[in-house]
């Protein structure tokens, strides 16, 4: 019974924590501009992330290492430096996006410019990590994140046709015009869904919770269930945008426009539901991202790290996320359009994904780490294919998007 509750909690936490600035921005843009036709990108990203998260848990169980720790051990420090540095850079941009998302939500609610919120929100973020325990932080924000289920309710209220959705999920297509932008969005959706920090973080969590072999099946259930149902929320955002913004001819270039999407379904409540969803989803993601980056740093250089360690006991780890949050706040202060920043950092995520995913795949097939739990050829092919294709598409579409938006 206890195990069942644990699995349920794991799934619920994953669902509540799934949505973030990246998925909201990419899904709403995709729905408003192209209707249902980008759902296949979401499906692709979800399949890949389910595999990656399950593998991440299985890796921690079988090898008793976290992924970053094992990449350093298996490939050596010199090989880790470039992927690590790039991942840190991208993490910083994504953190700035998440921070920006919370600030924009506050701007929409109060009318006070988002830049002015950067420092207060950053301090709130930092303070929470500094004084609270990990469980409170993770589970608290994830449970609050369940408010994002309002998108699913909205999609249902607006009368989305399941048959049409199912068809769009499995048929990739290319529209007659705006191809570069379409491709760019497709790639950003994949980057938003397969956030590397997610599966790196997951292995750290599994080690912290001391998962043993008995957790192999629960891990599979949590990975599949959590990611699947979480992706449903992302899908709902796309569907709602497609049903409310596209018919009005409104493209989502800024969060102000996205804020309109829940009005038809909920009336006045819709405005506030959007704001709360945006704020909570982004805040939760920001917490997780800051921690994930600090974990990565500590595990690369061999520092002491741990969820519940008081800052005094893990000074380098604590200062790592402190500096990270401060830098992200600086980026938000520059006044860069948060939505543009989000979209680009999602696309760049897709570019560097292979740098982390490929070494990870190699580890998943190494018997000295995995024992008998090595990957099946199927898993290897699925992940390798999706990750490489996404990267190539990203490298091609980012420059095209830059020209297109001149």
């Amino acid at each position, binding site marked *: 019974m206890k195990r069942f509750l644990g699995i349920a909690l794991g799934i619920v936490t994953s669902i509540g924590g799934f949505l973030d600035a990246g998925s909201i921005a990419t899904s709403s843009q995709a729905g408003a501009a192209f209707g249902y036709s980008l759902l296949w990108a979401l499906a692709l990203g979800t399949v890949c992330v389910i595999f990656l998260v399950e593998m991440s848990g299985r890796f921690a169980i079988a090898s008793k290492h976290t992924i970053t720790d094992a990449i350093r051990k298996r490939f050596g420090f*010199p090989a880790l430096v470039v992927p690590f540095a790039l991942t840190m850079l991208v993490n910083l941009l994504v953190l700035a996006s998440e921070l920006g998302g919370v600030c924009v939500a506050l701007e*929409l609610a109060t*009318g006070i410019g988002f830049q002015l919120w950067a420092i207060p929100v950053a301090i709130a973020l930092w303070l929470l990590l500094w004084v609270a325990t990990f469980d409170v932080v993770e589970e608290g924000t994830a449970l609050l994140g369940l408010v994002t289920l309002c998108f699913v309710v909205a999609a249902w209220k607006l009368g989305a046709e399941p048959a049409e959705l199912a068809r769009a999920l499995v048929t990739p297509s290319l529209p007659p015009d705006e191809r570069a932008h379409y491709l760019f969005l497709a790639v950003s959706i994949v980057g938003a869904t397969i956030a590397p920090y997610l599966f790196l973080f997951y292995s750290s969590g599994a080690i912290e919770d001391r998962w043993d072999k008995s957790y192999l099946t629960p891990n599979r259930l949590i990975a599949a269930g959590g990611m699947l149902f979480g992706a449903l929320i992302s899908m709902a955002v796309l569907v709602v945008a497609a049903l409310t913004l596209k018919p*009005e001819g409104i493209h989502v270039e800024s969060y102000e426009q996205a804020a309109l999407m829940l009005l038809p379904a909920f009336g006045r409540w*819709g*405005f506030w539901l959007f704001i709360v969803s945006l704020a909570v989803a982004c805040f939760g993601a920001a917490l997780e991202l800051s921690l994930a980056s600090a974990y990565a740093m500590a595990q690369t250089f061999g520092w002491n790290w741990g969820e519940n360690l008081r800052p005094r006991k893990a000074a380098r780890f604590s200062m790592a996320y402190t500096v990270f949050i401060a830098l992200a706040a600086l980026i938000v202060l520059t006044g860069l359009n948060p939505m543009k920043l989000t979209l680009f950092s999602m696309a760049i995520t897709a570019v560097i994904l292979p*740098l982390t995913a490929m070494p990870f795949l190699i580890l998943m097939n190494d018997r000295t780490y995995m024992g008998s739990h090595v990957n099946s050829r199927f898993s290897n092919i699925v992940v390798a294919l999706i990750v490489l294709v996404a990267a190539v598409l990203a490298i091609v579409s980012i*420059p095209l998007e*830059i020209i297109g938006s001149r």
Partner: protein
Amino acid sequence: MRASALLRGRAMNAALRACALALAALVVGGCGPSEADWRSASSWSLTAVAVARAWERGEVPTRYARRALQKAADELAKGPLPEAGAPVDELRQALERGDREAVRQLVSELAAR
């Protein structure tokens, strides 16, 4: 180790390729309003209409509507048809005054275009 050289090589290649493509694109791209600019302008006009209508129905607070219309006006002024920003600005002013009649009229004018 071979793996490290491989990874570094791949990263360098990808980065260089991306930079080359980006530079080429910027050079070739040139100036002048593109398709995307026209679509963006149209989208912002329609956004202004939608925001004003939502405000009329009492679905969004004035604070938000004001900022959203301001943003729309700014974006339109930057776009291929800067004159389109003026009516949206008028709309914003009417909204700030709380003048529902004027808002309704301006909205129907905008929507007609």
